[in-house]
């Protein structure tokens, strides 16, 4: 089986035509995971036994001719900040090292109902704070294109698990670029949906007004299917959309993009941008023009201040959300303590890693007396300005295009000593979260050193359909071969 090129559709067809059974399929996937994941390290927890059990049930359903679910038998990976009943959910933190949720996140519930098989929980930056997956308390995940480089973050395990062919579909979360940037670094497709389109119930909170769960996959169609499977309203998330939502993206994905208006924000293609990234993205823009879209350059001067506003707002929310980790009800608890205060202080000091502490500290600072007005309030007001500027832009353009990341995948350890330098890597993705709009990253080519380059498509709230259609059309035109040749020493 050529697993690394399997799509959801080829799996469905293979199962239905009895080319292979789901047990055979899962066995092959686990063979591949067991062979290569010791080098890539995508997974914190693997669920081999449960997966094969579930696959057997799928095979029985097929044999009996029962009605099959939307993702029946399809292997998926889940980022380790999304709660899975009875499966350890660590957030890649010592704080939740032994945490076994008593319930499924709504997304997981939907996936199970649709017949998907959860193969494991993927590595990430601790509490989703980071852009390289180096902040995991357990181990560093490697980029399948070059194992000396980071896979991006914070959904680095999700992106690498897709790129390495361990699963055809992965679920991550995106607070400031955490799906799109690792998708770009690993050469896969990933979407951050409109805020509210996917329920956050059971997603361990980082920045509640910014967080959103989304899929990553090898192709645009699979990414669209992955979103369809989990989108919709949920009474357990008061910020989720209010009405039923059943848009079938595949109905229109092949309709072409003739007549669409695409805006290019010139500040997103500034001089700081890596030259190879600029050139590949420019080539893609030319390709889009050839495909019949109208291209126009315009000014959207939000990158610099947007990054500041993002780090202020997200850290403020993180400091509040992470206040719950006190060693009382669940999670890590310090060994020795005299009193209640010491229990909390020692638990938090020992349980959180450096980056989580840094964000809690920044958040506490910008919310503290005397700084609230100067930082937090101003950042929240600036956020409104970002929203307005995007709204104005989308009154003129259907889709906005930019690179996903201003830099190529960097070497492991290259940026760990300079947090600000790491934060600057998020310049092109964070404003999307401030505005709550959807955005997708897809591969558009490679650097000379064969590192993937991602292009980002943004659209107005709930306009995922336009994004998928544009991305699919470009994908068919560029035909980027995004399966890495993993030259790994296999024991």
């Amino acid at each position, binding site marked *: 089986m050529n697993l690394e090129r399997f799509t959801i559709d080829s799996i469905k067809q293979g199962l239905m035509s009895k080319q292979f059974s789901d047990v055979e399929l899962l066995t092959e996937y686990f063979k591949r995971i067991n062979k290569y994941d010791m080098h890539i390290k995508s997974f914190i927890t693997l669920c081999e036994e449960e997966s094969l059990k579930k696959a057997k049930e799928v095979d029985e359903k097929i044999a009996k001719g029962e009605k099959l679910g939307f993702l029946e038998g399809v292997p998926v990976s889940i980022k380790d900040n999304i709660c899975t009943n009875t499966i350890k959910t660590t957030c890649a933190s010592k704080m939740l090292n032994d945490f076994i949720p*008593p319930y499924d996140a709504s997304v997981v519930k939907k996936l199970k109902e649709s017949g998907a098989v959860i193969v494991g929980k993927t590595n990430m930056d601790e509490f989703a704070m980071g852009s390289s997956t180096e902040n995991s308390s357990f181990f560093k995940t490697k980029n399948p294109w070059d194992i000396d480089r980071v896979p991006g973050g914070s959904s680095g395990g999700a992106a690498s698990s897709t790129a390495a062919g361990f699963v055809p579909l992965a679920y991550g979360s995106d607070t400031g670029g955490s799906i799109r940037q690792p998708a770009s670094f690993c050469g896969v497709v990933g979407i951050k949906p409109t805020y509210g389109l996917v329920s956050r119930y059971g997603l361990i909170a980082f920045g509640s007004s910014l967080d959103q769960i989304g899929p990553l996959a090898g192709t645009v169609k699979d990414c669209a299917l992955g979103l369809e499977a989990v989108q919709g309203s949920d009474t357990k998330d008061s910020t989720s959309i209010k009405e039923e939502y059943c848009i079938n993206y595949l109905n229109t994905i092949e309709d072409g993009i003739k007549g669409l208006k695409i805006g290019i924000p010139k500040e997103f293609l500034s001089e700081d941008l890596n030259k190879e990234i600029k050139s590949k993205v420019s080539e893609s823009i030319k390709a889009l023009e050839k495909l019949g879209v109208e291209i126009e350059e315009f000014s959207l001067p939000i990158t610099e201040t947007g990054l500041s506003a993002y780090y202020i707002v997200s850290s403020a929310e993180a400091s509040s959300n992470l206040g719950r980790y006190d060693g009382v*009800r669940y999670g890590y*608890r310090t060994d020795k303590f005299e009193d209640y205060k010491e229990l909390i202080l020692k638990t938090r000091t020992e349980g959180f890693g450096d980056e989580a502490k840094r964000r809690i500290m920044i958040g506490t600072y910008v919310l503290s007396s005397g700084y609230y007005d100067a930082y937090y309030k101003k950042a929240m007001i600036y956020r*409104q300005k970002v929203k307005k500027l995007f709204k104005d832009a989308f009154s003129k353009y259907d889709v906005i295009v930019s690179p996903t990341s201003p830099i190529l995948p960097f070497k492991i350890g290259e940026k760990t000593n300079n947090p600000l330098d790491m934060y600057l890597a998020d310049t092109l993705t964070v404003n999307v979260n401030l505005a709550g709009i959807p955005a997708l990253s897809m591969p558009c080519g490679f650097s000379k050193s064969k590192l993937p380059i991602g292009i980002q498509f943004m659209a107005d709230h709930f306009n995922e359909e336009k994004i998928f259609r544009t991305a699919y059309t470009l994908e068919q035109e560029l035909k980027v071969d995004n399966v890495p040749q993993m030259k790994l020493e296999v024991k």
Partner: protein
Amino acid sequence: MKVTIKEVEYIAKLANLKLTEKEAEKMADEFSGILTHFDNIKKENLDGIQMYSFDDESSKLRDDKVIEFENKEELFRNVKDMSKTSIKIPKVVE
């Protein structure tokens, strides 16, 4: 903007974190860099915009209904120290 070690220690206290002297020193340095970047926000003209000017709609509230959680035992699966159905913690009130 320069941040002093004393300020860092004060913030750590508010955040229920304990930093070593070396950590506090490092964080003061990092904070100064990060806050300088945050100063971008002070250069922006934000006249006439309120905190929620362009938010579309308010959150949806669900009915305040009691829903029985089936697996009560599983709810306590992650508790470190228990006595019957209560969680044990050190004495809070003297």
